[in-house]
């Protein structure tokens, strides 16, 4: 099967820019992500990570520039859930809907068979909590529900916005293992974080962003060396030592 753009980069941002009044949330970001890479999208709170991901996912319109996924605008993808799975930082669920119905609602709209809902519930370890209302879930369970939703279409690209937020150590370990498994399965992953420890061990390249600008990008082993850890570089670039 030949698909449009299937040979090109998985994600391509060109001078991506978003203004909110006087605030330039995303300021001319350009980068491409190749198939099978696991990329950390790093920057302090308010750096513009979430905004950039929203632009990428067609939730917001860029002020200028553009972003392509598999060579197309997200809005133009056929069956986007089968190609891109996203977990947004906001944790989007209706508190009085149960976990299974949350996923079924999405599966119906995406024309994904109900059996897949049960599969992803098991995959993230929510099988036994499936009939509980989401309001009774712990933060870690909610994050996993988000991950389950992203996995529904068995997509080749996963976008995770601050997946480590609020997770306890067991949750962080689960996340790390999960990211490694995705990478081992050859998926492309873009994971944003304002914390380094959770992702540094898992990603093979990073994008560092602050004040909407892309400050550094490249493979981890090229940016870091014996004297300079990722943390050194990050703090140097973002000047956030004193914040």
């Amino acid at each position: 099967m030949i698909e449009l753009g299937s040979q090109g980069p998985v994600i391509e941002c060109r001078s991506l820019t978003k203004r909110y009044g006087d605030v330039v949330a995303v300021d001319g970001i350009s980068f491409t992500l190749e198939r099978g890479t696991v990329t950390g999208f790093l920057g302090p709170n308010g750096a513009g990570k979430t905004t950039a991901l929203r632009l990428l996912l067609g939730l917001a319109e860029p002020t200028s520039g553009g972003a392509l996924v598999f060579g197309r605008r997200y809005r133009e993808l056929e069956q986007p859930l089968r190609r891109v799975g996203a977990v947004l930082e906001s944790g989007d669920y209706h508190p009085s809907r149960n976990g299974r119905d949350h996923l079924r609602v999405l599966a119906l709209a995406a024309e994904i068979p109900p059996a897949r809902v049960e599969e992803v519930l098991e995959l993230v370890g929510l099988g036994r909590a499936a009939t509980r209302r989401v309001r009774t879930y712990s933060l870690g369970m909610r994050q996993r529900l988000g991950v389950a939703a992203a996995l529904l279409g068995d997509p080749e690209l996963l976008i995770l916005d601050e997946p480590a937020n609020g997770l306890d150590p067991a949750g962080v370990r689960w996340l790390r293992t999960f990211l490694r498994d995705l990478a081992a399965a050859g998926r492309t992953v873009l994971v944003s974080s304002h914390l380094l420890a959770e992702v540094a061990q898992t990603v093979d390249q990073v994008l560092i962003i602050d004040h909407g600008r892309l400050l550094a990008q490249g493979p981890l082993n090229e940016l870091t060396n014996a004297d300079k850890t990722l943390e050194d570089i990050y703090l140097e670039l973002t000047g956030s030592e004193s914040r």
Partner: protein
Amino acid sequence: MIGQVRSELLKQRSTQTAVFLFLAMVGLVALAVAMHVLALSKTRLATNAHQLDVFQIGTRAGMLFAALAGALAITAEIRYGTIRPTFLVQPKRSPVLAAKLTVGALTGFVYGLLAEGLMAAFAAIAFSLRGIPNELTGSDYLRILLGGASAAALWAMLGVGIGALVRNQVATLVGLCAWMFLVESVSEGFVPGAAKLMPGSTGLSLAGNEHNLSIAIAASLLVGYTAAAATAGWVTTLRRDVT
């Protein structure tokens, strides 16, 4: 599109919102019957016209709760953020709105039938308790049920449109309630000529509770209001960023 409609139906069934709305509607209709049929003097309930008048409150309740349900279908998604995964599945957005309008019309029709049915039952009981002969004919009841349910179906779509336009849940719900039971009744006192053309009044004419407008004119007006609200909400939804 079928998948999107089924998804919207499951959204409605998988929270308790519909149950709460239904119970509130039963309460309102019961209260209205108690206030009117039990409190008004017998001479003011003697004729067919008087008795049809009493049904105004049932028709208004059906239209209002249908509109609340329609509005909630979109404002609850915005409030809880489920609009994000909804739009990730269907980034073109238009099919989501089309499905919400379709499901809104269906559930709105049911709200209308239930409101008028409850009204008819409560009123019949109240009439017989007070020994007032029931002057309503079979064709009166048919018009009340079908006209009231059609008006409620249109109001549900109007609610979807207003919800998509206003987006804030509390403002939308309060606005709809205030319009139905405050603005229109106050207008009846001050500008009766304009009041009879208002969306709630046109519904009363459809249900035969009011005889100011012909069915054709009342229906055209209400369809026009609904189309205007739905279009405004649609355009807003396509244009606005989801944050």
